[in-house]
């Protein structure tokens, strides 16, 4: 991990309440829209509330939607999740489309991911099925009974022939042929 994000709290991937094992439960539980009825900063928020909010509430019956008008304060969305996370998001001067997209992100994620840096991108309860690898996996079980050093298991069959060995072979061959010559001379 780089030191770039070290000031964030590190964490691991988790899903609350074994979500998705049996059935899937939407993790967004409550969403509060705070806005002003007159200021320009809330314009996009007001558009969203007028046009899309009722549909949003109909499509997501599991989400409680609150509207909180307040005078001369900038618009804010607060989302609360099943795992207790609370996501506060300023929507000042955001357009209708931007707010639609951010609300969709709030709806689909399972908590507030902002303040946790994931250390691993996978979580498993069973890290190994066939057993972890050791230097002795896939080795000949005969190794267990032999007394080492052993010529059979100590065989150097992994490396190419060394130059010394090649020279020795050539020398032995030469000697053999010399013998042949002597023989023919006989």
């Amino acid at each position, binding site marked *: 991990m780089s030191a*770039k*994000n070290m000031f*964030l709290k590190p964490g691991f*991937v*988790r*899903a609350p309440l074994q*979500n*998705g*094992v049996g059935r*899937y439960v*939407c*993790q967004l539980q409550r969403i509060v829209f705070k806005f002003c009825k007159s200021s320009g900063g809330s314009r996009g928020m007001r558009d969203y509330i007028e046009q899309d909010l009722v549909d949003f509430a109909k499509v997501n019956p599991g989400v409680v939607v609150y509207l909180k008008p307040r005078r001369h304060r900038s618009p804010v969305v607060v989302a609360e999740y099943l795992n207790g996370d609370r996501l506060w998001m300023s929507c000042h001067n955001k357009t209708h489309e931007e707010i639609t997209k951010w609300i969709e*992100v709030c709806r*689909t*994620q*399972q*908590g507030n*991911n*902002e*303040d*946790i*840096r*994931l250390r691993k*991108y*996978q*979580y*498993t*309860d*069973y890290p190994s*099925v*066939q*057993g972890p690898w050791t230097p002795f996996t896939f080795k*000949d079980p005969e190794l267990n009974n032999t007394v080492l050093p052993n*010529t*059979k*298991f*100590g*065989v*150097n*069959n992994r490396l190419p*022939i060394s130059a010394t*060995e090649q020279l*020795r*072979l050539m020398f*032995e*061959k030469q*000697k*053999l042929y010399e*013998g*042949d010559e*002597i*023989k023919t001379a006989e």
Partner: protein
Amino acid sequence: MALIRAGLQRLASVFNAGPAGVLSRYITNLSPIENKSVSESTKDVIAECNSLIEKNASRNFAIVHLLGKQWRVTDGDLLVLEGFWPPNIGDKIKLDKVLLAGTKDFSLIGRPVVQPGLVDVTATVISKGLSHTRTHFKKKRRKQYMRINFQRAQQTILRINSVEIASKINEAPNNVQ
């Protein structure tokens, strides 16, 4: 004649001279122990694997290709996929690019992918959100150059529901007519 014999013996000694001999390089330690014919033993192995699958003897795992990465998955795993990916929350999907599947006792290795219909990996999309804010900070000393960018990647969390192997190893695949 004596000379020939001596020469031959010397040659033989070159080939068989203990651990450093030449022949030792070409003789492997592993030799078939059983005297059964190859095809017969393969049939035995396949039958054994099929029976193991039917008995549901142990947990299955699979290596799945997803978004350019390879993931080792078993039942109940959580995966975090980064980048744009169309499936939405609550969707149940089947992961088809299975590169390898295995249980405790055997592995099925795809070339490159295990035949379709043999291994069934199902998953549910749990969450689609954004990662934490990543800071991209660049600076060159004494060059009046500094850039700072912030970005958040799209993250999809997947729950693996099941990894199942059909007990029909060595049967013809469905996609071949």
